[in-house]
């Protein structure tokens, strides 16, 4: 066995490892919020750049995945509040009938026409984010509470209400598409 002489692992090496191991969770989480593949890709890139620039402040008390979730969610929320997004939102709503790649179509394509997943993605953000983190990212309510900086009781209530909304939607009672709903 050839002995290896360790040299300082550079921040760039750490970053490459994180991209390799966590690109999917960052991309997925971004899509949950922005529901557009190319925007999610751009956000994923931004998240890794930010994580590199803040690497020195990364503490070992959180796992890299938790830290990346946090940066991704904050970046997505900043994007959703930004003027760029609102311009796209108004444009796509206005030209919805002509657009072949509207938000809803993106979701349909991404989830292979699964009705339940489409309905989840149509929920208002505050219910969608807790449902996806709980069911698809398999986080505990306490972890979601820490991540979103909310009380655990609030998370449980939002999950319950989200499920209720899903049930109504699947029965055909509620068609609030997110593009026209205030987040």
């Amino acid at each position, binding site marked *: *066995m050839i*002995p*290896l*002489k*360790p*040299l*300082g*692992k550079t*921040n*760039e*090496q*750490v*970053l*490459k*490892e994180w*991209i*390799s*191991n966590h*690109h*999917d969770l960052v*991309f*997925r989480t971004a*899509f949950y919020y922005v529901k557009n593949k190319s925007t999610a*890709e751009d956000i*994923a*890139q931004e998240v*890794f*750049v930010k994580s*590199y*620039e803040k*690497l*020195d402040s*990364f*503490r*070992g*008390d959180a*796992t*890299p*995945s938790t830290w990346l979730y946090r940066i991704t969610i904050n970046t997505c929320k900043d994007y959703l509040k930004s003027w760029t997004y609102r311009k796209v939102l108004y444009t796509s709503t206005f030209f919805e009938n002509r657009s072949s790649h509207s938000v809803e179509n993106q979701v349909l394509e*991404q*989830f*292979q026409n*699964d009705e*339940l*997943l489409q309905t*989840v993605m149509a929920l208002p953000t505050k219910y969608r984010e807790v*449902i*996806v983190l709980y*069911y*698809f990212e*398999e986080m505990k309510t306490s972890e979601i509470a820490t991540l979103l900086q909310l009380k655990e009781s609030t998370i449980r209530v939002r999950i319950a209400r989200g*499920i209720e909304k*899903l*049930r109504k939607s*699947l029965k055909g009672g509620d068609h609030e598409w997110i593009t026209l709903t205030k987040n």
Partner: protein
Amino acid sequence: MDNLDQELKQRKILVHQSFELSEEELKQLELRTISTIRAHKNKRNRSHLRIFTFSGIAVAILTILLIGPRSFFLQKDEPNQVSTPLGISVTQPLEVPTSFIPLPDIQAPPLAWQTEQDKLALFQVFSIGMTYSEAKELFPELGELTSIFGSDSSLGIDLQEATMPVSLGKNQALLTLSFNKGSLYAARYQRESRNEQEINHEKDRLITSYSSVFGNPQEEQIENGTSVTWSPFFGLALTKNYDGRYFLGWGLQFDESLDEMYRNRIFTVQEAIEKAMSKNSNNQESPAFPSRPGDSWNEEMNVTLGGKQKTLATATLRTKVKLQATETYLVTFEKEWITTEKKISDKPIKSFTTYRVTKDKVEMVENNNIDEELKSFLLRQE
């Protein structure tokens, strides 16, 4: 509710599969991210450069205005000397700027920590006797050093640990590095699971993997679980907690008393150090190094200049050990030098020699003893 709950849980795999990037897409993401980071850095550097340039020009102008005119009145020419416009006497030899003479330093190859196999081979990365700052330099994501007794420091500030999560395949394990008086004595992984089948499968897989390096282990029943050891230095244990959680822990650990207990049965760490030490003292006139990994001594590099003794640098001496294979160790005798003049170097300079030691043989595998080179360099600065 249960039905919808189940339906959502079942969708997890579909969701995850929908977002897998192809290798090409992953590569592109990596390239774009690194390009963006480098572009940010260049932008900052250009901005700094502009500031320095303008500052430099301002200082130069001030210097010329304030000092330039005076130099014509103060300078006296020697009759036999030709002086240049800048006032440099050509009868004296020009001194080579010492900044052009490089400080002796050793470049090591990069750390391999990409694949699961790399990470499982933690015995190739961590030496008993290494310091927290060395480990932190290898792994910037390593957590802070904390007392293993939490906030109650009266119980022993000497025992500390630092952790970091490590991805091993599809699982995550926690790597804990344990330090006694600032020196590493253990590096261990831990995973927990409630799935008995899964964790036992993982245990068997690890045993197979490590057995290919260390040979067949010894197994023994312990309270609440099983333990396997390849030596007093490397082992694995699976235990079940009262709340149903399984804990799988494995890695390397140096315990002096345990090492002593095994002395007559196998070739131990201490024996390896003793053999390497007697070889080291034959090869060079160096002072003895600590005989135990974890201990450290100090040494000064002193010279006599103009009848006065001066300390050029001080070193911390350490003995470090890595496990290479069954009863095969890499023993390193290391000096970490700090120069007295911080402007020469504010980083420690390492000088070391490494031996591969087995029961029958001691061979030097790396000689990076740069003590004399460093001394020459520092003397030239005086």
